[in-house]
């Protein structure tokens, strides 16, 4: 598998570290239900069969955190973007 790093180009998947779901966001720690929200943020994940936005870290490259949209059934990668990029 190769991932097209926006800075480094097509690179082998070995250069990257996988984290997981990129759609979860760190909850507001001041919110009244923060305990539950953090529990869900830390532990609960969907396991979709299909396109999945996930975080990869280019550890052996530019140290960018990337959002990779990957089809979990085929490993086909639809898009790769720097995290936070529009």
């Amino acid at each position, binding site marked *: *598998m*190769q991932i097209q790093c926006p800075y480094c180009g097509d690179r082998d998947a070995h250069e990257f*570290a996988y*984290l997981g779901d990129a759609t979860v966001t*760190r909850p507001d*720690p*001041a919110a009244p239900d*923060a*305990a539950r929200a*953090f*529990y869900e*943020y*830390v*532990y609960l994940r969907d396991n979709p069969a299909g396109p999945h936005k996930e*975080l990869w*870290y280019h*550890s052996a490259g530019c*140290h*960018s*955190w990337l959002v990779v949209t990957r089809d979990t059934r*085929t*490993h*086909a*990668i639809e898009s790769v973007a*720097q*995290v*936070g990029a529009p």
Partner: protein
Amino acid sequence: MTSRLPSGGLIDRSRTLSFRFDGKPMTGNPGDTLASALIANGTVLAGRSFKYHRPRGILTAGSEEPNALVELRTGARREANTKATTIELYDGLEAQSQNRWPSLAFDLLSVNSLVSPVFVAGFYYKTFMWPAAFWEKLYEPLIRRAAGLGRASKEPDPDHYEKAFAFCDVLVIGAGPAGLMAALTAARAGARVILCDEDFTFGGRLLSEQFSIDGQSGTEWAAAAAVELAQNPAVTLMRRTTVFGGYDQGTYGALERVGDHLPVPLPHTPRQRMWKIVAKRAVLAAGAVERQIVFGGNDRPGVMMASALRSYVNRFAAAPARRLAVFTNNDDGWKTVADCARANVPVEVVIDPRPAIPEAFRQLAARAGAQLFEGGQVSDAYGTAHGLQSIDVLTATGRTVPVSVDGLAMSGGWNPAVALTCHLGGRPVWRDDLSAFVAGGTPPGLAVAGAAAGAFDLRRCLADGIRLGAEAAEAAGFEAATSAAPEASDETLGLMPLWKVAGARTKAFVDFQNDVTAKDIALAEREGFRSVEHLKRYTTLGMATDQGKTANVNGLAIMASLTGKSIPETGTTTFRPPYTPVAIGAFAGHHREKHFRPTRLTPSHAWAAEQGAIFVETGQWLRAQWYPKPGETDWLTSVNREVTAVREGVGVCDVSTLGKIDIQGPDAGLLLDRVYINTFSALAVGKVRYGAMLREDGIVMDDGTTARLADDHYLMSTTTANAAKVMQHMEFCHQVLWPELDVQMVSVTEQWAQFSVAGPRARDTLAKLVDPPADISNAALPYMGVTDVAVCGGIRGRLFRISFSGELAYELAVPARYGNGVMRAIMAAGADYGIVAYGTEALGVMRIEKGHPAGNELNGTSTARDLGLGKMMSQKKDFVGRIMAERPGLTDPDRPALAGFKPVNRADRLRAGAHFIGVGAKPVAHHDEGYMTSVAFSPSLSHWIGLGLIKGGPNRYGERVRAYDPVRKGDIEVEICSPVFVDPEGARLRV
């Protein structure tokens, strides 16, 4: 007795190669395989079967071979289960037959065949069910001795293996007519082409048949095609290379056998090379595998695939038989009759179960002088370990006619080699017109050509190659000129399915390598194991190293007929990588032992080595563990000396391995506040603070000190082990969680050499090193201060007043390139004070004496409170892990928490890993209160001390518990105490 034909074949008769099989000297020629050379030497018997020890001959001429498995080479290079049909003959080759005792021809364990009712399908499950204790002691050793394949060499592999990457526009898998044509077409269009074939000569079936293409022989045409391809610089030709797996995004795994055709690999070359080929498009032209017919004794030595027999006669000029029978249910098998007649190999009899055959075949049989049984079948074959003796022919009218023959060529049709289309989840589909499975869907970018796609004739193979080669090149961005397919021989199939002959009297085999018979399948059906997956697992059909390439479809068809269903209704078997076995060594490549694992040396390594330091691996780093002095015979003596020297004088330790992250920007302090449990934005410039960071789930991730060098400039240190992990975490926090923060960071671990100078004389030592007018007095540089310094006449560095040992201590950082020299300078400066170098052991002893938690305590389950760091957790700000750290389970006062331990009997030795249980409590898991995490002999206290995590730890000082260690027979009483054993007030730090 030689069976080498006097002329013909693609062997080099000008040279003779000597080899030995089971010690017997034989000869062959370049161009031979071990199998063809054995046949040329008149050898019929090649091995014994897995379960029944039945004598087996050579069945095929390719990588689908189930029978002729040998141990190749000797000593450390001995490799078991190597297919004689794929071993390229070399001078001096040595091979041994397998699974026989005492000899291949006379095998005592063939009595297994007599007790075969015991060995039927599911015999493991039925026979050896109980008592359970008998498994290990009796059944398993018994089965292991009786059943099995070759012996592995138990020595380290002396060869090496390599990994390589390749990229191309068009990958062509298989260099038969379809593959060569596809490669030619794509290459002519300008595409970068890689052409792989598992054989050592390109041509595929062209090498084994009497074809003509454009007026040339098939072999001439293949050779010319290979020459044209070789002359194209954009083409890479890979012979002896099996594409064994298809993976994501057009990636293919291929194994190149670089040195397997040589006695030993050439100097500086690997034995095998593992290729990862990334192709924009791929054409699978892997051909097809001929399948057998299931009849009695179909596994007898002398029974062979018809296509294999033609390979031996046409390509290798070796005659496997002198009185041959041909048993075919299709036109293709009749080529055997024609080719044998041409090569003067006598065909005695032809049996074709089809009720009517073309007139041309009748004439062919007559010309060959063979008796023809139209509508007939072979019910049984008889023979011994020395070969086939006769067959029973069941005629169209139901009579049984015995015929004396010494060889039988059988053809039950062809199975397209679709394995690679299945590796990404494709399922083969059945085609009634071919009586075969073809690819049911292909991975993106892969097209199937020729016989692999069910095109069982040469013209269509060539046309497929042109069409799919052009399509692949065009899809990769090239313009392909369309050309007409070359003129080629005509072929027909005319197959009438025949899977199993009814009325066999003797054992009829479906899977030769795993000894699965037609009866086993019937038994599985009777016992309800009818689904394909059950059938496979119950009988082990198709589960051997050949993955049932010649067997699976027959097994499926027999099950279909037993259940009255069609073959597609019965199911299909899919294929997983690898297509043929791949040595683990090839997957590992150079990633073996220390190769490709960097060894990181500390800046003062050379100096430490000169001192005779004992080194220890910590992660990738090699660190000095202790520095033995002359006369010191055990490590403890050296370590005690080093600790005492530091506590009473001064010592130096290279601590460069700690991770260092340089953090800069207006928001650097804010980011640190969110990463650490304590506050760093309020830290004064020129000060250092100890910090701990949590994972978001509330567990401690790492700890270390961070210095503020300027308003917008911090330097963080991490533990050696977690340096990369913390860097990744920091980048995560910045890029993912809080991208709005204006901050930048970079790892500077390797840029700085850092030395801990510790002990009452540390300041005196350093005072001799720093360049004037620097002032490092207690007033100018108090505890937890940091300052820029220059040392040794102009080396600019930093001096941190921090202490891990609990003594007056500094850490001096200089650019890494000065590390070796500065270490020597520190030793010289401290000589008057009796300075010692100390290693990681002494470092560890002193941190235990001071109760500092380290890796053993930061064990991935401990919280900040568990480690006594609860008070550091800021209430005024948010930080990673804050919310989750408040979960009830993590704030339970009964959680194991850090405490110190002393043996009640001071002479007792403590052991890390011992579990705490109450005095007098029964030593069961229920009474477990925690465990000892770190221990050391304290030279300062002259007895063993320990740190541990125990329920309610800090509230139980003075209480006694047992440190229970049944594995090492330890059960001693210990007293719970403060984890700080030395200088609990910290007075020594501040002098």
